[in-house]
């Protein structure tokens, strides 16, 4: 599974410069991301909650959940590229459930360029790991594909060594508190010494409550990682 993205990019890199690019989110002709999808899905006018990555009004640093202490605590910051809705949601679904990992290559550049302006440069990238059985079934880990894209565009090394040892029930139907508890003991670091003293971006496709980020960050901290920044493609939006 080494360098999944390098393999992908070799074949698609030339396509990047082709004159006619269509929007990956809506199929419009002004690609790779058309002005209206940029406005509707990436929401550059909004801020991101530092605690959980949720899209919030710019004057706010934290969302109300995080203000009242119900957000993740192990990360220095979490940020999300866009709002988990419409064409961006469909895009992530296609990558994940319709087995089109190659699609990530279409957004690797705009996403990387955005990410490096949001977060401090770090020693390396850690993808949220997938359970071995799930990985065997699906054939790829979408978080790892995203990490490979960032590695390719920004040159940050990919750090391995975190594993998902338990397959817990789906997070979808659980409450916030249940989600956090559901993930206890799910992740382990196999080579702790290797990560000690480093700073990392922790990569996932989507975050809702930040529970997955929190659970991985916890084992990273225990292994001596100094700074952890969560980065994902999409997150929810704070209403009101």
């Amino acid at each position, binding site marked *: 599974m080494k*360098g999944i993205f390098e393999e992908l990019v070799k074949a698609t890199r030339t396509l990047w410069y082709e004159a006619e690019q269509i929007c990956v989110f809506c199929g419009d002709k002004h690609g790779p991301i058309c002005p209206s999808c940029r406005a509707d899905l990436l929401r550059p006018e909004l801020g991101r909650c530092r605690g959980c990555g949720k899209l919030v009004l710019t004057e706010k640093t934290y969302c109300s959940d995080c203000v009242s202490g119900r957000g993740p605590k192990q990360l220095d910051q979490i940020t999300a590229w866009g709002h988990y809705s419409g064409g961006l949601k469909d895009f992530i679904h296609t990558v994940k459930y*319709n087995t*089109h990992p*190659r699609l990530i290559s279409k957004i690797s550049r705009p996403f990387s360029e955005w990410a490096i302006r949001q977060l401090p440069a770090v020693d390396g990238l850690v993808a949220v790991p997938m359970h071995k059985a799930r*990985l065997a*079934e*699906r*054939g*790829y880990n979408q978080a790892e594909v995203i990490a490979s894209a960032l590695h390719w565009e920004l040159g940050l090394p990919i750090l391995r060594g975190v594993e998902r040892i338990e397959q817990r029930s789906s997070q979808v139907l659980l409450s916030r508190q249940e989600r956090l508890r559901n993930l206890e003991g799910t992740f382990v670091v196999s080579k702790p010494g290797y990560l000690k003293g480093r700073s990392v971006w922790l990569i996932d496709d989507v975050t809702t409550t930040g529970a997955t980020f929190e659970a991985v960050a916890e084992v990273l901290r225990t292994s001596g990682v100094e700074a952890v920044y969560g980065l994902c493609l999409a997150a929810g939006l704070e209403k009101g």
Partner: protein
Amino acid sequence: MLFFLTIEDKYILRFRPFEERAIFDSRVVCYLSDPLPLAIIQWAAEQLTRGQARDFCGENLEIIKKRISKVLNEYSSGLDLKWKVPERSSSAEDSMTLGREVGNGNETWYAINQLVRGKQLSVRDLRGLAKDFKLRDREIIDLVHNNVLQGTALWVPSVKRNSKGWQCQRCGEKDVEEWPSFYGLAATCGSCGSIGPSTSLDVLYRDQRLFMNSSAKVLFQPHWRLTEAQNLASEQVAEFIGGTSDKALLWAACGAGKTEVCFPSAAGALEQGKSILFAAPRQDVIYDIAPRFQRDFPDYPVQVLTGNTSNRFQLGNMVLATTHQVLRFWQCFDIIFLDEMDAFPYRGNRALDWGLNHALRPGGKLLYLTATPSTEALTSVRKGEMLLIRLPARHHRKPLPVPIWAKYSGSFEGNVCTSFLIERLELLRRSGPLLIFVPKISWVAPWIKSLKKQFPYWSVEGSYSSDSERGPKLKNLKKGQYDIFVSTTILERGITLPGIQVVVFGADHPVFDERALVQMAGRVGRSAEYSGGEAVFVSKNMTPAIKTAVSWIKEQNKLALELGLIQL
């Protein structure tokens, strides 16, 4: 879905969907602890046996294990290969016997087993079936795997790699999207993704049994009488079905009633216990035909499958389906009627063509029904590869209105109603409401505006295929509420507009090929009360498409006259 590679006594290589199936089968000597994609297991088996029988009789088990591991490591270096010996204690019971939840002979088991006959299903489809019956995924998988063990079904990799490259086993597509997976290079098919993903890491369940092979009394009560023209064609369809050719083209005049022509043959075939597929590329065609079938074949179970169908698993030897759904059947139809073969999205779609040919049983019959045959179809007829059946006349025995070409050097882009256009539209309106076809959606609104301004006392409306208001507007059009209706593509099937007069603006535009022009002109004179009317093609240039369209219509009339099917 993944499989466990097992070695049985006498050293036969097999695979099983669950570890329990390996543990509790006394024939299994050892197995690999981690499951693998079927494609890799099959590839390894081929490498080991080089096309010979898959047993290693007389060889040493340890050597066989080593050889398998070596071959698998060649495929992908990252695999963690551990051999396990099944631990069977005499007290442990097989917790997975068929018969616990879904027992052999049990009603649910029987019902499901009927539903999967002749089908080609993805694991996602099977999971859907499990959900319908409130079963666990593994119960369904186990049930259908039993058919595989019986030799009446197969698991095949959804996308397979051979010496020539990849090919999707569901739709035949060879141009697939490659990506580096956990197991090395993998591929996803982009052509049939609309009915669920198809990848090289996944499998298809291919049931090789026929639907139901028993003859049954079929109550056929047609609510109409075939016209003389339809009768002639219907007899030829029956001859084709009983004969030796395997493909035929039914070329009908627009509005001649080609569907009904197939009904008597369908009734005969169903009575003999044969299975029939009536396929069409568009949903509206299926929804138009379904009630007619259900009315004329009362009590006969008809399966109706489109992209919107929630119940994907139905019973009955008669299937009405959109062409995409055809990919879920495997060599199980004796006869396929394919309606409107030239209509989008079927035309030129290799995937659907492949699917259609694989849904047909070897030696089955394929009849294409169309008013506008493609060049490829006509070439096949000329070469003698396909039989030609003609249906040149409408039920009212009047000739088809032959389109008139009106040379107009003005521009349509400016949507200006010149005196040339005004005069002609006024004249035509005296005979009936006007249907104006334009080549581009962007022309619709400006032309409505311009026509409204020019004819303030007329009711002017318009629509295009993706118009959200299309439904209600077409309803009003059907009721004759508009004087002028502007539209882009041909109207939906089943719409007969009494007294309608057709005008095509910019008839020389490249989107209007001979097929589109014949279809648009074919809207005129369909009903008995208004069998006349005019179709006018307005353009700067006379194109080959206009010429062909006019000559096709003239030729239909000539043939109908010769056969005595129309009166002038």
